[in-house]
């Protein structure tokens, strides 16, 4: 049992290994945003579980602190889901790249939102497969030329639209270049009851020469400042989620709470299942049913 800590949680508690990312990578900003959010929420690293996939994004947990399950390419979501069900007292954050989340893990992504698991999903969206050296990803802009798409990438997936359609409770976008905003979004995600997607615009300084720091800085604007924007209005949210190009909105695009998957699980009624005592005699009354 974790006792309530009197000592304040500080950034030092979230120190980790030295990142092996390229200098100038958007991932550094994301790492700072994650640390800041966890410190602001005074969460002890031992109460946090970071489940990541494979890609440059998936390395993030090693560069901070907490319980870590660095899973397969595309598969952090099912691991995270089960961990949360096993011990709902954990704060579970899943971490992917755009390929990990929307390509290899696309099916898990859709169904996790539909079922509404109590998980915050951070997707480092650099619109490219960075770790495998620059191929197109599901979010690469149409016509984006890479070694595997010499004729240009096909139509991209819009993760935010997909998320709203799939029933995701909190759909947000942020930018790796704005740590304060990102930390706010991550906190909103953790505090949201249900599944929260935070798609994070992340410049890849090595492979993505189109969607650069400058490219984003010229386009990104904050929704929070938009007079009268109501993130609980699904129709408006669908429209806002499709805005891309000259102006790119960041902030909470859509938010609506509904019962979570955990709420529907009778097994969780007696507290975290991981704490239940295991005893063979449990099966005794069941045997009677087979006589």
């Amino acid at each position, binding site marked *: 049992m974790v006792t309530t800590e009197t000592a304040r949680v500080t950034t030092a508690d979230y120190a980790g290994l030295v990142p092996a990312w390229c200098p100038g990578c958007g991932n550094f900003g994301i790492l700072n945003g994650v640390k800041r959010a966890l410190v602001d929420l005074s969460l002890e*690293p031992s109460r946090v*579980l970071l489940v990541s996939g494979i890609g440059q994004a998936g390395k993030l947990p090693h560069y901070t602190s907490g319980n870590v399950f660095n899973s*397969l390419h595309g598969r952090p979501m099912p691991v995270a889901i*089960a961990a949360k069900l*096993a*011990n709902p007292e954990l704060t579970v954050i899943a971490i992917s790249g755009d390929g990990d989340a929307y390509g290899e893990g696309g099916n898990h992504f859709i169904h996790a939102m539909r079922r509404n698991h109590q998980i915050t999903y951070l997707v480092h969206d650099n619109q490219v497969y960075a770790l495998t050296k620059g191929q197109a990803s599901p979010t690469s802009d149409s016509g984006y030329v890479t070694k595997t798409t010499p004729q240009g990438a096909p139509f991209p997936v819009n993760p935010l639209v997909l998320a709203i359609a799939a029933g995701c409770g909190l759909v947000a976008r942020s930018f790796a270049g704005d740590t304060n905003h990102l930390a706010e979004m991550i906190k909103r995600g953790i505090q949201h009851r249900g599944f929260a997607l935070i798609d994070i615009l992340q410049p890849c300084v090595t492979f993505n020469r189109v969607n650069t720091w400058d490219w984003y800085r010229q386009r990104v604007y904050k929704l929070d400042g938009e007079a009268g924007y109501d993130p609980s209005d699904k129709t408006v949210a669908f429209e806002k989620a499709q805005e891309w190009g000259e102006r790119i909105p960041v902030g909470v695009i859509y938010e609506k709470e509904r019962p979570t998957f955990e709420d529907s699980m009778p097994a969780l009624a007696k507290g975290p299942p*991981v704490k239940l005592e295991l005893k*063979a005699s449990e099966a*005794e009354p069941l045997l009677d049913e087979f006589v």
Partner: protein
Amino acid sequence: MSIEVNFMIGGEAGQGVQSVGFMLCKALARGGYHIFADQDYESRIRGGHNFFRVRASDSPVGAVIEPLNFLLALNRESIDLHRGELGPDGIVIYDRAKITGIAEGDDLFGVPLEELAEIAGNKVMANTVALGAVAGLIGYDREKINQVLTEQFKGPVGEANIAAAKAGYDFTEQNFKGKTGFRLKQASDARRLLLSGTDAIALGAIAAGCKFIAGYPMTPTTPILEYMASKAKDHNIVVVQPEDEIAAINMTIGAAYTGMRAMTATSGSGFCLMVEGLGLAGITETPAVVVLGQRPGPAIGLPTRTAQEELEFAIYSGSGEFPRAVLAPATIEESFWLTTKAFNLAEKYQTPVILIIDHTIATSYTTVERFDLSKVVIDRGSLYPDKSVVKPEEYKRHQLTDSGISPRAFPGLSRALAITDSDEHDEAGHLIEDAKTRNEQVEKRMRKITGMRNEIAPPRRCGPHTAETTLIGWGSNYGAIREAIDILSKEGTKVNALHLSELWPFPADAMTDALKTCQTTYVVENNAAGQLAHLIRAETGFSVSGRILKYDGRPFTPAIIADKVRRKEVVAW
């Protein structure tokens, strides 16, 4: 004289073949009979041809045998297809009003099934009339039939079914009294369990403390998921039907990493999707129990039939190298115990454990003595002892040890941080690239095999110590092989058997010893390649003399095996 009666219920999907078969089993089991029953059905919801065979005996039975004594034909096709399987005094119970134009014979016992059902309330109860009719023919205790009907159908439907069964019973008693020699009285007061293989596995899992299952429906293991779901509320079991088998195995791993006993269940196609996950369990040293229920492949194959085509796949599948255990219960009873063992091996050695069964084990029913739950061991293996860790970095999830086993800490239950990675990692669980650490972790993981191998049971020997011919089997063929030995020994042929229920890590020394005294050796397998023969050769250098193989999706019977031994009909490729 021992009592031994074989029934078959045949009909279309939707006619209630399975429910009559099951109720007959239950009623006979409560009369103290030993039961073995199997099902043959098509991958469809209505129509087609299905049958359910029930063997009842006053001594233990482990296979279906020929010939039939009673054929309950709910449609014409059942007569056309199975009348020839009746023994000399065999009887067909059928609806004379509905099925006409069949060759006359003393074996035909016509009962107006539908008419009596209609009088009792609804003609859909024709199957229940047939159940009553056969009970009347054997003079079986009416109360036992009524009891199972009451349990199966509630309220007025139950009463109507009791009336339907009574009508069938009265009819055969009045019309055919004395025309058949079979009388089944109470055999004993034994109160055994009547279980399918999937029942036994689900019960084994619950007894072992498994409180997490994620599974995507696939014949023949879906009933495990369904049973656990039916007990989710009362027994605090987390049951998830995810989007696919990839999610199922990764959820199993996620729950086990967090500290639960967790499992998944699937069949060949689903197992294919899980294979990457096996490697994840391997490198992150996470326990994962996977039930692999085999049916004939490749791909979708014959979805509702039996096979043993995935032994080598279970043992060798996955990227890279990592320890695992593969257990293959020989009987429904052993399915319970090996399920409990699977959880212990998985947690002690922090590896995937595959419980491989065949469709026959999964879907057959048999009577077993009530399990003594005080004999169930729950061994969670090495756990990180210090719950008051001050500096999180004190704990190393993949600490190097002589046994290769590193104590487990679970996230959130102490200040120790559980860090692990599908990349090669160091003791602390962080990804690495250097050769030295890589070697240390590979060797640490492989060291676990030694400990695990010591826990693997040697092959079981049945029959005389020495024999002209030794049959070598695995999985559900155990029952048929044992009886084949009896058939052949009555003819003066000395045959024995070696049976492997725990196949990986392969018990190579024990098997080498056992093979030393053998003369002619035949593997008996439900596949076309002789996968056990390959395995024995790979692990012991011993080549079997021949392979008795069956890959038509139907189980062996003792007579089929005996016949192949007699005629030396073994596969040469």
